[in-house]
């Protein structure tokens, strides 16, 4: 028979605190995908964190070894599946560097324009979900409303809202339609006011400040040593933006600033990304103004995919199209590592070519993978609820983490 203790006996018993291990499992509304965190808790405080990625591992790098350079483009969409245009661009810029292909100016401007639109789209999703996790649900509704406008614009140009596969090696799939320029301009007029709406909602909100200031602090030196890039790094004050350091596409022709933070906490990264959205809007306006009529495919005859009308009428174009689509043309033998500034950070492609039309090895340096590796340092010492703020601030998408 169990002896029940009296209340005085219970009060005299010493309370023993033990560390518990909590599994924040792959199915969780706030982990932005299938991320599994094994947290060691002392009460409510996190003393250890072991992220276990791999739930979305699809073996993309191995699969890419069996496909031609052209066939890989749709797969790069599925890496960071919210801002697909930037992944396409990052991959194609790497292949163009490997083969030494120059892209005409109009194509560069359209690439930059769409890359910045997609950056806006990615940051809007980040802001919406980050705020939603912390509790500010209204922000999510507003940002997704703006994102619909961007997705409409993207669909107008590429035919798809999200997984666009729009960039081609040497240029683009097609030119922008006639009414796109005006619609895009309308968007750039509307967007700053809308951005002010969500910014004023939370920037000086007491609850937001309490949940984000002083949380997840990374010093500048640590941030660089841990491999952080993108907005996560610039929140700590390190001025490193690949669009300025190693310009690609038309980034050396447009003017924009790189916003920096000071303290390296969640709040500073929020400010950095909001300001990045303003700068993206500025870049889009400049691209619309500076774009001139011209070709959108390279004039390098080896790699340029012939136009459909030519393929239907011209024997040489037909043969070339067939070779390109079935086994691609031999590429120079060597290796390149090219990194571009994706919305999440530095997206790098290390391509090893053996001289055939298929890559020998592609390594995708995914910013989300590196940022999750910095999560244990960020959350140790904070409470469980701060883990959610930290996951939101490092801005991850598991598709690119796991590949």
């Amino acid at each position: 028979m169990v002896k029940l203790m009296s209340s005085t006996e219970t009060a005299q018993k010493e309370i023993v605190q033990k560390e518990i291990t909590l599994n924040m499992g792959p199915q969780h509304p706030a982990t932005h995908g299938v991320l599994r965190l094994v947290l060691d808790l002392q009460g409510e405080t996190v003393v250890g964190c072991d992220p276990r990625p791999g739930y979305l591992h699809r073996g993309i790098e191995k699969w890419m070894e069996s496909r031609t350079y052209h066939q890989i483009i749709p797969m790069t969409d599925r890496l960071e599946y919210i801002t697909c245009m930037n992944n396409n661009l990052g991959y194609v810029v790497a292949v163009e560097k490997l083969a030494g292909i120059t892209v005409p100016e109009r194509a560069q401007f359209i690439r930059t324009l769409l890359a910045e639109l997609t950056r806006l789209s990615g940051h809007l999703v980040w802001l919406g979900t980050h705020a939603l996790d912390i509790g500010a649900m209204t922000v999510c509704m507003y940002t997704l409303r703006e994102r619909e406008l961007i997705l409409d614009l993207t669909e107008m140009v590429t035919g798809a809202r999200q997984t666009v596969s729009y960039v081609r090696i040497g240029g683009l799939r097609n030119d922008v339609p006639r009414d796109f320029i005006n619609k895009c301009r309308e968007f750039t007029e509307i967007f700053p006011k809308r951005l002010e709406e969500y910014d004023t909602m939370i920037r000086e909100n007491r609850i937001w400040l309490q949940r984000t200031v002083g949380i997840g602090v990374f010093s500048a030196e640590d941030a660089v040593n841990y491999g952080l890039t993108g907005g996560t790094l610039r929140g700590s004050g390190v001025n490193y933006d690949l669009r300025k350091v190693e310009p690609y596409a038309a980034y050396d022709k447009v003017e924009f600033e790189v916003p920096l933070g000071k303290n390296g906490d969640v709040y500073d990264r929020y400010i950095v990304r909001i300001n990045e959205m303003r700068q993206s809007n500025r870049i889009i306006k400049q691209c619309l103004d500076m774009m001139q009529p011209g070709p959108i495919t390279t004039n390098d005859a080896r790699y340029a995919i012939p136009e459909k009308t030519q393929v239907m009428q011209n024997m040489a174009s037909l043969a070339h199209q067939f070779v390109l689509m079935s086994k691609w043309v031999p590429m120079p033998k060597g290796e390149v590592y090219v990194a571009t500034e994706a919305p999440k950070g530095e997206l790098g492609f290390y391509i090893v070519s053996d001289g055939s039309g298929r890559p020998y090895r592609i390594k995708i340096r995914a910013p989300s993978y590196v940022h999750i590796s910095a999560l244990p340092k960020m959350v140790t010492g904070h409470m469980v609820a701060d883990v959610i703020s930290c996951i939101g601030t490092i801005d991850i998408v598991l598709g690119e983490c796991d590949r």
Partner: protein
Amino acid sequence: MDPLQIAKMIEEKFAGHVQGTATFAEQVSVLLIKDKIKEICLFLRDEPSLKMDHLADLTAVDFSRYPGDTGLRFEVVYNLISTVHRHRIRLKVRVPEEDPRIDSVSSIWQTANWHERETYDLMGIKFDGHPDLRRILLPEDWEGHPLRKEYPLKGY
């Protein structure tokens, strides 16, 4: 600083451990022997004129099916950047098939920790001195290293 100058600095300081320098598409790779990799990386990180404070990527390539390749089977590749001086360099080290081990640089750049775990997981290269070398993307009880060329694309 021009990447070829960086390569020369490494060659001068660690003569005998550098097998050569290769340039392709304006990018410079330095081929090294694996025994002094930690000293070389420390030199690259701490030397004021180089200040390679950011390890962008650490990966490995399996050269067993590369046409015309005669070296050791695996190549570990380090892509380094300096956020201060804005220059890049690539280090390449070959390791043999029978004993694919190399020193870990996770004490020099913390980001190497997860990159080395992934290289171990998918390619089977062991990193001596790594604090926690276990599989990361695949389940712990997985057998085999999928990125090796003999591993079939659709698995077993």
